[in-house]
């Protein structure tokens, strides 16, 4: 397997075909040959390998290889509009990144966006608690609450970002004026623009956390809450001392997955503000997207993305280590 990777990489260094399509076909043929070979050589055990092998080959060819390739691009100057093609330029991209205020600005924004998850979590938890209560029309509420998650972020950014927040006659602007905000502009100041993007993203993703938390709530044995009531714990106290500790593992999982999704945030930003005003709403993804679209700068963009990936891995590992204590179900 490693050999083929190397072969492909060296094949990538000196293109012999007009397109590299044949490489793709060769890989497909090689992969199916490998699968058949496993069955023929190893018999029964080979048949078991056949369960995991296709997915593994698929993922390896589509992530590991592009990642290696990406590393090569990251250390080169490559502007797609430039006919010279790719040129190795060592750490020049890294140096440029170090002094690129917009990149660091985008990273700072990501910290803000990520912190907003705590508020989303609180709202989602509250809603999950309400949905878990004995209520009628649960089906209606579940569908209604689920809908924002299902809608395409691009459509959402038009529906809310462009239409409902429209300063002159959008219904939300109207509401804001009625509430006493003289000149509602949701993207006027830096903080306001960032907050607006946060709210729109929260609108889409609160259902996701809510459903995970609701599943967690429904898994709590009824006896526990009843016993606590018998022991005289009132609502507030029983929540903090029974429900919340029991919900910690689910909460950690929900927040972690939400962080992962938040770090990919781009669609709404690209379509509503393109990062403006003054980069206040820029996410790393939308910044790199524009870096490519406006300047076709593949090398630099890839370097930024790779650094971002390393940061994500470090942060996620740190968070997982730190929260591992609470993530285990308490006995």
């Amino acid at each position, binding site marked *: 397997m490693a050999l083929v990777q190397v072969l492909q990489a060296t094949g990538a260094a000196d293109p012999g075909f007009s397109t590299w399509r044949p490489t793709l076909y060769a890989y497909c043929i090689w992969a199916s040959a490998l699968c058949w070979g496993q069955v023929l050589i190893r018999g029964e055990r080979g048949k078991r*390998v056949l369960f995991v092998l296709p997915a593994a080959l698929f993922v390896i060819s589509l992530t590991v290889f592009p990642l290696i390739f990406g590393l090569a691009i990251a250390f080169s100057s490559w502007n797609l509009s430039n006919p010279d093609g790719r040129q190795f330029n060592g750490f020049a991209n890294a140096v440029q990144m170090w002094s690129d205020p917009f990149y660091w600005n985008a990273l700072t924004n990501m910290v803000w966006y990520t912190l907003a998850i705590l508020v989303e979590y609180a709202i989602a938890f509250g809603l999950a608690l309400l949905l878990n209560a004995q209520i009628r029309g649960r089906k209606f509420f579940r569908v209604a609450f689920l809908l924002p998650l299902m809608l395409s972020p691009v459509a959402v950014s038009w529906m809310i970002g462009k239409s409902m927040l429209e300063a002159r006659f959008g219904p939300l602007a109207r509401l804001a004026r009625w509430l006493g905000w003289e000149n509602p502009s949701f993207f006027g100041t830096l903080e306001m623009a960032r907050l607006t993007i946060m709210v729109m993203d929260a609108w889409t993703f609160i259902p996701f956390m809510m459903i995970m938390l609701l599943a967690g709530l429904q898994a709590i044995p009824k006896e526990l809450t009843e016993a606590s009531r018998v022991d005289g714990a009132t609502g507030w106290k029983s929540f903090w001392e029974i429900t919340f500790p029991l919900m910690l593992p689910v909460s950690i999982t929900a927040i972690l997955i939400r962080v992962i999704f938040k770090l990919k945030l781009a669609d709404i930003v*690209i379509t509503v503000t393109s990062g403006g005003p003054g980069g206040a709403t820029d996410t790393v993804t939308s910044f790199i997207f524009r870096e490519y679209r406006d300047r076709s700068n593949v090398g630099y963009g890839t370097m930024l993305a790779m650094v971002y990936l390393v940061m994500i891995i470090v942060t996620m590992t740190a968070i997982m280590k730190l929260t591992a204590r609470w993530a285990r179900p308490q006995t």
Partner: protein
Amino acid sequence: MSETPIFRDGEADRRYRMQWFASRFAIYGILAVWAVICLFPIYWTATTSFKMAPNVMQGHLVPWWDYQPKWLGWKSLGLSPDTIGASSTVRDEFLKRFTNSAITALASSTLAVGLGTLAAYGLSRFRYRFGPMRNDDISFFFVSQLILPPVVLALPFLVLYKALALLDTRIGLILLYTLTVLPIVIWIMKDQFASIPTELEEAAMVDGLGVWGAFLTIILPIALPGMVAAFILSLVLTWNEYFFAALLTSTHANTLPVMVASQTGSQGINWWSMAALSFAAILPLIVIAALLERFIIRGMAAGAVK
């Protein structure tokens, strides 16, 4: 002198009932407010697609009551009753994008559920060793793809696809989308297979079925709900995907979200036609959500409770 009735509610009883009603009221109140927050943008889009310019400017809200609905937005898409017969370039464009979206979403979800189900089954039933990697490491390898932000893969893929002549093709998008939803499918399906007792296959194998026979005839039908959940979730995610589609397609293979986004950029502000387009883009999802809500919730809750 009034007689005090013998049977009456005590002070405590009455207070308790008051509290009960108050809390009911609060619960339904908050739920209703949130439901409005969730549904209003959809309502707004749906009604705007039937508005004329002055209706939009004056912020009319309720059809027939403060404005007269017109087919204006849908006419511009070529989808209103009186234009449905005539030929329309916008409608052709829209249908082309719609087909692209549908094909990529369906194909990649099918592929992902196929590959992911097999992998999840293998990982939950057999022991593997791949170099230093054991089962847990292999599972982690698959699921950790979720952390990979799309932007890291985007530019290498762009260059690679250009070289492979896969740029602006549906196949290219399908491969990439399969990759992005595969971790989620594996996550859901592992959870599903963990809930099926191993005795079932053991019995089947005693009866003379092979590994694959037992899997295909016994386990797969039981695991169907999980597969449906994974499939629908993948479908939603791939249908909505914008970032890769915007980057990797230009004229042939671009999907509905790209079309919607390209219309927002042009500030001609045809509110009604934008509204019609957005609403047409989200309508399939609303239908799916209303009909298959159980499966979606099941899929999302899969990882939550261990």
